[in-house]
């Protein structure tokens, strides 16, 4: 049985954070702009450490940024 894919709310949260750019978020999460774009599109699953850094950049708990698609 395959697990449902993990999705994220990064795009929405960037908007809510005053239209934060991918580059700005990348700087906070210590990854490149292209990596943020790949995570946003679901093309790349970040490490736990990066996921926590992204969540912290928005001041949200991890599960409000990343979650299973069925949730």
């Amino acid at each position, binding site marked *: 049985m395959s697990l449902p894919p993990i999705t994220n709310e990064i*795009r929405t949260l960037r908007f809510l954070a005053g*239209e*934060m750019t991918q580059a700005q978020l990348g700087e906070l999460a210590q990854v490149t702009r292209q990596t943020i774009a790949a995570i946003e599109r679901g093309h790349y699953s970040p490490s736990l450490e990066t996921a926590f850094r992204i969540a912290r950049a928005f001041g949200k708990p991890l599960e409000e940024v990343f979650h299973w698609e069925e949730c």
Partner: protein
Amino acid sequence: MHDTHLIHESDPGMAYRERQAWLALAALAAGYGPLFGALALGRPVFGRPIVTFLILLTVASVVRVVVLALGAWWLRRSRPGDAAQPIDERDRHIAQRAMMVGYICLMVWMILVGMVMPFHSEGLELVSAALFGLVTAEALRYTAVIAGYKRR
């Protein structure tokens, strides 16, 4: 529901490391393409075959270094922000996978050159085949890097 259309950024474009891989691939093609083309023709241009091989190899190596140096300078100049960024975890993932692809190719080729070819070839033919294996493994590694950025 928030309208997020405002933050749909334009295509993030090629990652800096992907550009570097394209550059390295181009440098390989520019340097070693003519060398292997000349070797395939099989006619010694500068007297003895070994002299021809060594001259062509030197020229190929110089061309490769020049293309790499000029390309790296141009990349840094055109994208100073991206160039200054350290590699991140995605870059490392992609580089590791690509390294594995290149390593496997190199091992297979070297087994062929070192354990199979000596039964029917010798000298310059073996050296050329080994060099071709090295260049192919490098080219495959850079191709795997490019494919990694396209997929991820």
